[in-house]
C-alpha cells in the first residue's frame, strides 16, 4: 500500500510536449510510472515519446480512465488546466509550476471545494512511491522503498529529508511535496491523515518552514488523534528575522508575530519530535528503531 500513487495508478501528463515535460516524462516512464496519456492542445491524435496525445484532459480521461495528472503548464495557465482536471474528475493533480497568482489560487481553491480532485502544489516536486511510480520531478535515484512517510512544505528540502531517511538505514512509503507557494492545494492535515490510514507507513517525517501556519494546523490535527504514528519534524528558518514589512496587516492575520521558535513549540506540544538541524533528522529516525 501507499498514499495516492502506486504502480497501477493511471497517469496523464498535462502539457506533455514541452521541453521540461518531455525530459521528466521519460524519467517517470523509466521509473515504472504508468503514463497512459498526454494532453496538448492542437496535438490530439499524435504520439509523443510513445504516449497518446489528446487535445483536452476530458478527452484523455474518457479514453484512458486516468485518475492522476501531473501538470507541466506555465503558472499563468494553471487555473484553466485545473478547471479541466476538476471537470474530468481526476483524483490527484500535481502542479509543478511555481508562482501561480494568489487570486488564481483562491479561485482554484473555490473550484476544488466539493470536487473529487485533490491538488498537490503548486511549486512542488510532486509525489513519489519508491520502486512503484513517480508523479513529478524527483531525483528518483535517492529514493528507497520503506516505511517512512515524508511530507514537506519546502520543495528541495524534501530531497534532503529523503536522504536523511537513507542515512538512518530506512526507506520511504510515499514522499509528498506540499509546495513552496504562498497558497497550496493540500496541507499537512490531509497528508498526516492519509499516512495514518496507510499500513505501510510506520512513522512520518514532516518538514516545515517559516511563513504561514500550515505547520500549526497540522500539529493541532495530530494532537487530536487517538491513535498516533510517531512524527519527526523540522522547521527551516530559525535564524531569520522577518524584516522589511509593509504595514501591520500581516501580523494581525496571524494574530501576532509567528516565529520559527513558536512553530517548533507548537509541534513539540502536539507530541512531535523536532530536529534542530536538518542533518540531525537521521539520529531521531534511528531512535525509532
Amino acid at each position: 500500500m501507499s498514499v495516492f500513487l502506486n504502480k497501477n495508478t493511471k497517469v496523464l501528463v498535462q502539457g506533455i510536449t514541452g521541453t521540461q515535460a518531455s525530459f521528466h516524462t521519460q524519467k517517470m516512464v523509466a521509473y515504472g510510472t504508468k503514463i497512459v496519456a498526454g494532453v496538448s492542445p492542437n496535438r490530439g491524435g499524435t504520439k509523443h515519446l510513445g504516449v497518446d496525445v489528446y487535445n483536452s484532459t476530458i478527452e484523455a480521461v474518457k479514453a484512458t480512465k486516468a485518475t492522476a495528472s501531473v501538470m507541466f503548464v506555465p503558472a499563468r495557465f494553471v487555473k484553466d488546466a485545473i478547471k479541466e482536471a476538476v471537470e474530468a474528475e481526476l483524483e490527484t493533480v500535481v502542479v509543478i509550476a511555481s508562482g501561480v497568482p494568489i487570486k488564481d489560487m483562491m479561485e482554484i481553491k473555490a473550484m476544488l471545494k466539493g470536487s473529487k480532485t485533490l491538488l498537490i502544489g503548486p511549486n512542488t516536486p510532486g509525489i513519489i512511491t519508491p520502486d512503484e511510480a513517480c508523479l513529478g520531478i524527483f531525483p528518483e535515484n535517492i529514493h528507497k522503498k520503506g516505511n517512512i512517510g515524508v511530507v514537506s512544505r519546502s520543495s528541495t528540502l524534501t530531497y534532503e529529508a529523503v536522504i536523511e531517511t537513507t542515512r538512518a538505514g530506512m526507506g520511504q512509503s510515499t514522499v509528498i511535496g506540499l509546495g513552496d507557494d504562498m497558497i497550496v492545494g493540500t496541507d499537512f492535515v490531509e497528508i498526516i491523515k492519509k499516512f495514518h490510514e496507510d499500513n505501510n507507513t510506520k512513522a512520518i517525517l514532516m518538514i516545515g518552514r517559516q511563513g504561514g501556519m500550515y505547520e500549526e494546523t497540522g500539529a493541532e490535527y495530530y494532537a487530536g488523534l487517538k491513535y498516533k504514528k510517531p512524527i519527526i519534524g523540522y522547521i527551516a528558518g530559525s535564524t531569520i528575522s522577518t524584516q522589511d514589512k509593509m504595514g501591520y496587516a500581516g501580523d494581525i492575520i496571524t494574530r501576532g508575530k509567528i516565529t520559527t521558535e513558536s512553530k517548533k513549540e507548537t509541534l513539540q506540544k502536539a507530541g512531535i519530535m523536532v530536529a534542530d538541524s536538518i542533518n540531525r533528522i537521521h539520529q531521531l529516525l534511528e531512535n525509532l528503531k
Partner: protein
Amino acid sequence: MNIHEYQAKKILNRYGINIPVGAIAYTPAEAKRVAVNISPKGPWMLKAQIQSGARANGKFVEKNAGKLGGIRYITGRKDIFEEAEKMLGSTLVTEQTGSKGKSVSKVYVEQHLTVKQTFYISLVIDRMIPCITLLVTEETTNIVDAVINKPEKILRINLDINEQINNNQINRIINFLKIDKKYAKNLKQFVCGIHKAFIQLDSTMIEINPVGIDAKGNFIALDAKISFDDNALYRHNDILRLHDDYEDEDRVLKAAKYGFQYREFNDGSVGCIVNGEGVALSIKDMLFETDEKMDCFLNVKGGVDKDKISAGIKIIMTNPRVEGILINILGGFLRCNLVADGIIAAASEVGLNVPLVVRFEGTNKDEAQEILLSSNLPVLMADTMQDGVAKLLKAMKESD
C-alpha cells in the same frame, strides 16, 4: 511589489476613494512651490516617501534631520523648505525597515485636513482559509499590541474571492467603530472602492491607516499602502511601471532580472547558492552555530539556462563581503550539470579568489561532479549539507 503612499493614493482615488490634495517633491524648493499650490496658507503635512509603515514614529539617522519622524505637521511656508531639506537625502529608520533604514529621496506635500474620527482598515490575504480578510480597528498606532492583548479590538470579516461587500457587513463595521449611521452609504462606497481595487489589481494588501471622517461625513484616506502579487504583475503593466528601483539593493535587482531570488543579511561572510529557499534557510540555521554567518544567498530555483545561472553565480562571487561560497544543489527540475557549467563560466569571467565548496545531489549529479573535477578550479566537493558547511569553514580558516 510595494509602491509609495502617493502612488497608492492616486490609484485608490481612481476607485472613488477621497484623498487629500497633494503633490510629490524631490527638492526643498519644489516642496515649497507645490505647497503653495495645494493650499496658500496651510497647514500642510510633509511626508517622507519610503516604503514602510510607522514612519511618524520613525527616527532619522542624521542628527541634522531633527528629532521628528518622517511625517511632519507644518504651519508656516518657510518651514516647508527647511523641513523638506532636513528629510531629503536623510535615512529614516522605522520599526518596519530594520536597523539600516531607508533613504528618503522624495517627500509628499499634502493639505492638512481636520477630521472628527479616525480608524484603521485593511484588506489582506488570509492564506490559511484562503480568502480576503477585511480588518477594522479604532486603534491606529499600537495595532500589533492590540492583536495580542485585546483581540476583541479588531473586527475581521472574511470575504470569499467571488463575494461582494453587503449592507450587513457595513452595519457591523458601523456598530463596531460607533460611526454615525447616516454615513453608512459613504462607508459602503469607501469599502467597496478598496475591495474592487484589491481584486482588480491582484493586490495582496491594501492598508489605510488612518481613514479620517470629516464633519460632513466624508471618508478620506489619510495614508495608504498597497502591495501587489509579484506573480500577477504580468497582467498589470501600469502597476509594474511604478516599481521604485531605489527601494531594492543592486544585487537584488540584478538577481530578479534573471528570475532568481537574492537575499542579503549583511552580517556574515558566507555566500550560498541553492535551489529552493528552504535549503538556504537550513544552511543559515547550521552556520548560526559556527564562527561564520551567512551573508547572502541566491536561489536559482527554476533556472534551466546555463548563462542565467552563470550570471547569478557572479552576483555572489563579486560581493565583497563574501569570503567563502557554498553551493548546494539538489537537482530535480534543475540539473546539476547546468550549475557546474555555470560555475566554470562565472569563475572564468570574474575569477574565483575565495574558497568554494560544492555539494550536488540528484539529477545528473555524477556528470556535474565530473565537469567540476576536470576543470582547473580549486573546488572542494561535499557529500551532505553538513559536510559542505564543515569543509567550507575549514577552508576559510586556512585561507585567513
